[in-house]
């Protein structure tokens, strides 16, 4: 059994702010049915760019539900500027930590939030920037570089924990290793 904190269990069994929001004026989606988890985030943003209401719908494991629930609690009442600074670590910290292999659930939260904010601001989210590395989970090199830098990641296993990249067929593991080496080499200069 996964080693979940009491807070994760509590947010899984009694998730806050669940459901579809009919009058949402910003929506962000992350994940897919194929990857095993997905989050759809609904925001109501007022004229001062403050999030007055937020709900979510999630398909996924306990930590995916708990991360979504935690995210909604964190951002409710925030301005979009403040919300855009919320990271996956904030979500994980709010829950007292997530198992290493479940960090991607918090990343999914951060990603859906970014998309919802972009959606509100009318920013077109183009196809993901960068080159596709992991075909199973549609992860690009730029995403890998960002997460490696932000979290000081040293191994491919940890990249998989955060982004799922490399966790499917495994064909891209060598490419991830190359990215890791080049990013970490840069850091030393």
């Amino acid at each position, binding site marked *: 059994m*996964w080693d979940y904190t009491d807070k994760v269990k509590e947010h899984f069994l009694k998730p806050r702010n669940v459901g579809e929001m009919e009058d949402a004026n910003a929506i962000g989606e992350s994940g897919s*049915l194929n990857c095993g988890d997905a989050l759809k985030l609904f925001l109501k943003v007022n004229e001062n760019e403050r999030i007055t209401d937020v709900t979510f719908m999630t*398909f*996924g494991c*306990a930590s995916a539900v708990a991360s979504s629930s935690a995210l909604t609690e964190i951002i409710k009442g925030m301005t979009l500027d403040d919300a855009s600074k919320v990271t996956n670590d904030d979500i994980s910290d709010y829950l007292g930590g997530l198992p290493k*292999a*479940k960090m991607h659930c918090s990343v999914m939260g951060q990603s859906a939030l970014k998309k919802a904010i972009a959606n509100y601001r009318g920013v077109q989210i183009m196809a993901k920037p960068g080159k596709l590395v992991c075909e*199973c989970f549609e992860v690009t090199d730029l995403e890998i570089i960002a997460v490696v830098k932000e979290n000081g990641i040293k191994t491919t296993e940890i990249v998989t924990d955060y982004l799922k990249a490399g*966790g*499917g067929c495994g064909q891209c593991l060598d490419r991830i290793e190359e990215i890791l080496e080049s990013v970490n080499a840069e850091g030393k200069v």
Partner: protein
Amino acid sequence: MRVIYTDNNATTKVADEVLEEMLPYFGELYGNPSSMHTFGDKVDKKIKQARQRVADLINADPDEIVFTSCGTESDNSAVFSAINAFPEKKHIITSKVEHPAINKLYQHLQETKGYEVTFVPVNKKGLLDLDLLYDSMTDNTAIVSLMWANNETGVLFPIEEIAKKANEKGILFHTDAVQAAGKVSIDVKKTGVTMLSLSGHKIHAPKGVGVLYIKKGFKFSPYLIGGHQEKGRRGGTENTVSIIGLGKACELARENLPVMNTKVRELRDYLQTRLLEAIPGSSVNGDLDQRLPNTLSIGFDAVEGESILLMLDRDGICASSGSACTSGSLEPSHVLMAMKVPFKSAHGSIRFSLSHYNTKDEMDIIIKALVPVIQTLRDMSPFWKDGKVI
């Protein structure tokens, strides 16, 4: 809280009769069966009885039974012995849906020892592609190893037919019968397998004991090299207590085989029918006929398995899932993927595996608990609306 245990393909309760049989050998009867004195000999006699009981379950001769530490050791010993027996043959065959004890071992042999491996595919019902299997058997094939019954879906492979074909072609055949034992009738003489693996804890014996049946005449080479135990086929002092327990468990398994195919099958079918009726967007994984009587793998669209299990856990219901999230990997189980079960239901697949200890009352409790669990998760799922997947 009352525990409802429907995870018997993972492990089973040690039967009361088995425990009772074992207890004296934990205590005053601690002798070493190899010793010259009467004290050790008492244990030796009991081990002989256990060997006979195991042999009787599968219609083997007692000399053909080697005790091991688990099913994985039995599987590994069988495969390594086969490739030692035919060092010039560099091709090995198995299926895409094996237990890791074979699957990972074959991958290891492929990656580190240069073996050419055929992983025979299965169809949507989990049934083996027999034409491909037979076509892949060549003079260069050292061993064919196939499971008798699949742990996740319960799907049965036609072991007798395959063994016959392998024997005709002079290829050594091993079967992992860990899930089949005690659930379907096994007769090694009739089947003609060269080696067969069993595990104690799947048939109400304790964990930490397994069996490798080795047909008389096969030049077996030991995996654990050491003392003369098991006639030199497996070194190491016998796990006397567990072996004695396994003997009793095999005797009980033989007696209970009819129960498995009546009462347990009826309970499984009842659970299956009621769940399919009560929960829209649910489907059974695996062939309905060629299947163990105790196993139900059922997928629920648009929800995820770990969430289902954790919610059932609140009601003391123990089951397992083929979902990625419970295993530490990210893709759904290799078995469901090999069967091309769609992602929408593969991620939400749950395995219920029953034993003769289960009751109809328990099935009703599971049905009553599961319906609202699936509903709650679907109410939360972005992929479920108005009674169907979107």
